[in-house]
Structures are given as C-alpha cells and as structure tokens.
C-alpha cells in the first residue's frame, strides 16, 4: 500500500474530515470527489501519482483499459534537444518497459520532426506543434515530460500528474533550472537534462513523489490591503 504522507491533510484526517471538511469513509469523502485509502491518506483518481495505490485497492475507476499516455510539452519554446531524445529508441524502449503505450509530443516552435509510428507492439508516437490549451492532454496523460517553464510545471502539478521536468541546457540565462531543482528537492517532480532523461525514466519511482498543494495569493492581498489602510476583512 502506498505510504504517501500529506502532513497538512493528515492533520485534518486525524479530525475525521477531508480537506474540504467532508466526512471520511473507507472509499470517498461525501463532499469532494477525492478517493481516500483505508488509512485515510488522500489519494486521487486514476492517471495520477497514486495509481499504484488505487491498483492496490483493487478498484479501477475508468473503463478504458491499457492506454497509458506519456505527454511531452515544450510550451511556446523551441526545445529540439528534448523532442529528439524523447524520440530516441532508447527512451521509447524504456517507456515501453515501464508500461506506457502512447507518446504524444507537443513540439512548439521546434524544427525536429518526430517519427510518427504506431501498432505492432511498439510505442505509438504522435505529435503536434501548438494547441490553445494543453489541459485536456495533461488530464489524459499518465506521465508528463515538460520543459522547465513555470506555467507548464504548475499546470501539471495542479492536476496531480507525475512530472519529469527537463531543463534546456542551451538557454542563455537558465534561471528556470532553479525552480525545477527546488521542486525536485521537495520531491514534487523529477528533474533531468536531455542526456540524463533515459536514466531518470528507468530509475524513477512515481509513488515516492509528493503531491503539490495549490498556492494561495491571499497573504499578498491581506498585506496589500493592510498597507493601503483598509480595515481587516
């Protein structure tokens, strides 16, 4: 059984309610649609970090069997190095070994075209340049491999998807790597570079990733209001 620890959630769990104040049952909270394991640890629905836990509970939430998509995104940038390495036989074989069936690449402004393929038991590969919103692709992915843009990172984390962030070594002022490294240190995602991606995929343990709690802008609003002389509340 997964032993994921959510300290904040656990405090509330000890009081017998989920994050939104609903009562815990062995399977689900009566307020939110989140699923709780029998020990009261918060887990999420399928295609998330805690798939293994769900599998351990012997329950499968969706009817579509077997399709596990790896979604690769480079945002609005050009990151040929990532697209190339993801399209390499090594990485594709490794993904197949880890149980993934499909590879969908959003390649942005890059010029390297992946080799589309499918069928005959190998990884099914498809790609596109841009879309107005990648939220749907993120939602239906089992694993996300993304460039280190903060927008892509947080959009993925907020959906509770396992994430490998690949830092672009060709960027001049690489402050992006700071964010990826910090979040990797806090165990919310894995961080890699194009040469080390294959190794990261081979050795990753997605069950060990910690969920990311969405941020909160109200402390800023409070301080701004107080500074401007508005009364509290």
């Amino acid at each position, binding site marked *: 059984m997964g032993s994921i620890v959510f300290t904040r959630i656990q405090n509330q769990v000890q009081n017998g309610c989920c994050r939104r104040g609903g009562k815990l049952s062995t399977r689900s909270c009566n307020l939110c649609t989140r699923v709780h394991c029998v020990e009261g640890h918060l887990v999420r629905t399928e295609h998330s970090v805690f798939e293994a836990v769900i599998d351990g509970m012997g329950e499968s939430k969706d009817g579509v069997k077997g399709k596990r998509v790896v979604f690769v995104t480079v945002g609005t940038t050009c990151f040929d190095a990532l697209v190339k390495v993801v399209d390499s036989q090594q990485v594709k074989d490794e993904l197949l070994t880890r149980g993934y069936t499909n590879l969908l690449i959003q390649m942005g402004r890059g010029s390297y075209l992946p080799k589309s393929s499918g069928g005959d038991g190998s990884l099914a590969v498809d790609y596109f340049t841009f879309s107005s919103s990648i939220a749907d692709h993120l939602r239906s992915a089992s694993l996300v491999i993304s460039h280190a843009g*903060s927008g892509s990172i947080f959009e993925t984390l907020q959906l509770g998807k396992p994430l490998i962030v690949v830092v672009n070594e060709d960027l001049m002022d690489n*402050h992006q790597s700071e964010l990826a490294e910090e979040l990797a240190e806090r165990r919310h995602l894995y961080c890699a570079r194009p040469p080390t991606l294959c190794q990261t995929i081979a050795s990753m343990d997605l069950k060990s990733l910690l969920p990311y709690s969405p941020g909160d*802008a109200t402390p800023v609003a409070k301080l701004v209001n107080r*500074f401007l002389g508005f009364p509290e509340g």
Partner: protein
Amino acid sequence: MEKNTGCPFSNLSPNLGITCFVAFITVILVRVLYVIYRTGKPLNKRSPQQTLSTLIVLGSGGHTAEMINLLLVLQKDRFTPRFYIAAATDNMSLQKARVLENSWADSQSGVKRISAEFMQIYRSREVGQSYVTSVWTTLVATTHALWLMIKIRPQVVLCNGPGTCIPLCVIAFIFKVIGIRWSSIFYVESIARVKKLSLSGLLLYKLQIADQFFVQWPQLQRKYPRAHYVGCLM
C-alpha cells in the same frame, strides 16, 4: 554716489541664477530623500468603501498567470478603475486580462459597467537584443511610459517581474517626488525565482522604489530581508 552704471541687477543675476539653481537641486534632493523615507511606510487608515485606481503590469507567459491569480483575491470594487499594460509584442496577456474582466462583468450583469482599460507599451528591450540598440529603445519606451502614466496617474501599481514594469515604476517614483500622485508600488517576484532575484526585482529592491516587495520562496527572504515572504502563489 553710485559705483555701478547700467542695470543695478547685472552683478546680481549670475549669483541669483546660481543660488536659485542650488536651491532647486536642494529641494529636489530633500524631496527625494523624503519619498525614499516614506516609501514602504503603510498609508493612513481609510474607509473600506474607498476606491483606488490601479495599474496592473502584465508580462508574457507565467507572469500573467501569476498576476491573474493575485487579481482573483483582490476586491474588485476596491481596486477600480483598473488599467492593464502589456508589452506591444505580447499578444496573449491582454487577451487573458480581457477574458478575466469580461467574466467579472458577466457575473455582475449590468450593475456596474466594466471599469478596465487595456493598453500596450513599447518594450525597452526584446529578448536577445543588443545592449547598444537597447539604449535607444529604452528611451522610446520610457517616453511612451511617461505618456501613459500621465494619463493614468494610478494610486496603486501591481507588477511581478517583466522588464516593462521598470520604466513605469521609475516614473511612478518621479511622480511621488514631483507631487503629481502618490502611488503605492507593490512588486511580487515571480515564482520561478527561487535563489536569485530577476533584474527588475533587483532594481526595484535596491533602489527602494517598491513600497512592498514580495517573494515566494524563503531563500530569497533570507537574502533580501526587506522582502515579505508570502509563499507560492501558484
């Protein structure tokens, strides 16, 4: 008997000129010191019904997403009218702001008209532009910023990192010195800045132009003690 011939002020005017000039510079300096002293000091209490005209500076990508997150928790009827400025080459940000304002207007359905304006400003420097040509483009951008600021004269400025905010904040500071408008400048450093400040952040922090400076990671608060640590916004 008079020693001087001609205009009795002829000896006086150079001295008078210099005296006036020195007095003027002194007044400006004193005023600048006063503004720096008052910057960062909370304003006097005001009634909750008061409104403050607000300038919101948008930047590409993650900047706008973070700013929108902040706007969602600010009282819309307090921070109004709202003026959004984005760089001329940034197409997405103003669109996102428009969508946000429209959704607010929809939810109020006819009670209040939309009190938001959307403007574009020339960029000081494009990504990768040479620093030599940047001098000229920064001057153009600053002139444009001056024109916009004179029109808006905001009481509150919200910005979170893009270079577009620097000319605007500097002009807001100058307005404080001259006495055109006292605007409170709030700067939220981007969530992507964990260990080092961005160039915009560094300028606004060191020059003490921002009234309140927010950082999202504790490492930055330790390095820059006058900053407020507010945790992650995203």
